[in-house]
């Protein structure tokens, strides 16, 4: 058991080391910090709204750039192991393929966690600079955004177990966008105009797409209540439930990725 964890950890550590050397990540980090600074400038123009703008922009930066980075790492890191044949020397070692896939995911998750942490730190620094402090709502919102990033990484890894980075990227982005608008799809189903055929299609889509909107609740209406990180926000119970839901998705996607990866020929 400890051996097994040691192997998974070795792959995860190696993946992390590899990922932090990808220069694009530093570009993304720069963009997020720049967006936060821009939010301050914007906030100063709108009197009394400084804090609101800073929080909204900061959070949007975390979840958008976090998700994009997750997709990027997810579609590239596993695929390139096969493409560049680095996987050959690895899978000929006494490691199971599922341990390898799990290690890859954990390495990516670690990288993304560090990145989300840095994004959040940038946001907090700027909030403190404005003298507004960090509310519990902000902490919850960041945790939710982080959970979403973890799910998106699993989505991207799943696609990259059998397809090229380009296609995996498109699929993952598609799922991310649809996952964010499932309530709107639900609403469309209720309307009278839609045809029976398109309704069936939409129902199928709703079944197979993770409800990522659960992680981006600020500014939406939840159970008839307006929820905002600037006002009334969700409870920790909600955060935990969303986390559990995400874990189920991550587990399912990784299991599928493993089943596919297990059967692949590395030629």
């Amino acid at each position: 058991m400890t051996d097994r964890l040691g192997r998974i950890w070795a792959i995860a550590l190696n993946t992390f080391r590899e990922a932090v050397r990808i220069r694009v990540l530093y570009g993304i980090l720069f963009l997020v910090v720049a967006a936060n600074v821009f939010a301050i400038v914007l906030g100063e123009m709108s009197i009394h709204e400084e804090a609101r703008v800073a929080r909204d922009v900061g959070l949007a930066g975390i979840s958008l750039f976090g998700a994009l980075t997750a997709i990027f790492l997810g579609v590239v890191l596993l695929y390139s192991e096969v493409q560049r044949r680095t996987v050959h020397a690895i899978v000929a070692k006494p490691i199971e393929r599922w341990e390898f896939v799990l290690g890859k995911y954990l390495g990516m998750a670690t990288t993304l966690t560090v990145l989300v942490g840095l994004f959040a730190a940038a946001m907090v620094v700027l909030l403190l600079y404005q003298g507004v402090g960090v509310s519990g709502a902000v902490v919850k919102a960041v945790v939710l955004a982080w959970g979403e990033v973890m799910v998106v990484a699993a989505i991207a890894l799943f696609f990259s177990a059998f397809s090229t980075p380009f296609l995996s990227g498109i699929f993952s982005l598609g799922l991310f966008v649809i996952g964010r608008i499932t309530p709107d799809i639900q609403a469309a189903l209720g309307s009278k105009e839609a045809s029976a055929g398109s309704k069936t299609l939409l129902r199928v889509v709703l079944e197979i797409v993770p409800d990522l909107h659960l992680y981006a609740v600020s500014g939406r209406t939840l159970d008839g209540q307006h929820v905002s990180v600037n006002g009334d926000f969700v409870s920790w119970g909600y955060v935990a439930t969303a986390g559990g839901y995400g874990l189920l998705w991550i587990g399912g996607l990784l299991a599928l990725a493993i089943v596919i990866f297990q059967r692949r020929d590395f030629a």
Partner: protein
Amino acid sequence: MTAPPGEAVIDVADLAKTYRTPFTRRRVEALRGVTFQVRRGEIFGFLGPNGAGKTTTIRILMGLISATAGTAKILGNPVPSRQARARLGFLPEQPYFYDYLTVGELLDLAGRLFGLDAATRKRRADELIAKVGLDRARTQALKKFSKGMMQRAGLAQALINDPDLVVFDEPMSGLDPIGRKEVRDLILELRDAGKTVFFSSHILSDVESVSDRVAIVIRGQIQAVGSPRELAGQTLLGVDVTLRLDDPHGAAADEIAARGDRVRRGDRELSLTVAADVDVDELLAFARERGARVVVVAPRHDTLEDLFVKSALASDGGTAAGAAVTEGP
């Protein structure tokens, strides 16, 4: 894993592999019923022209790809098997490793996958880096390694667990003459340490000079298995004679040269090959009478190369490379 000497460490029976390209539905029969055994403690050379199926066989043994038919066992375990891989060292063909690691970090990763503790990993890594001659490249990222350096790093990572069996796919490729010699010495050293070595190559002299036994694979089928001597046969093809003469281009030299073929003339030397049935004593006496001194007399046998080329050409009228390709399902 202490099998008695002579026991099969690699056991391959009727192995077949057909690659199918999606969409075009082309089928490549890379292996068509390959059977051979590698015994414990021997150096086994896996010889064949480009595209013969060497890498395909090795990838099946390593669990990288699955066989279409047949069975393969490593150290008594059917492949793919995690237990078998624990006692195994593998150098892939044209190895490639993580760009940003140093060779030390690569070896550390490999050691972790074998479950070695930190002290052992460090000690073995230091030994192996010195052994493969990468001491001066220790701080360099693998990305900046030359082809031959990558090959050396690949050899080092294959030996991190002090394996019982090593499988090298083209270990000499990309190496300079000194490097090739070092790899030959390494292979011999591993055998002397009681390990079994299985390696592939399409370069005859590399295989011939170190292998205890050889299998020749051509177009996905084994053409011959045996020691290089057995395979080459003991028939005397002729005798090579080298003589020292004051003037290898003079009339006396011409007289001697007329009695053989493959004549080569140096500054002060004349070499020729005479047929197997020629009376060599009489030839040497004839040469001495004309002022020649005998330098070398050596028998010429059929070489592995002759066999290799013969069987390669026999398997299809022209080039030996490639596998059987068929269109359609």
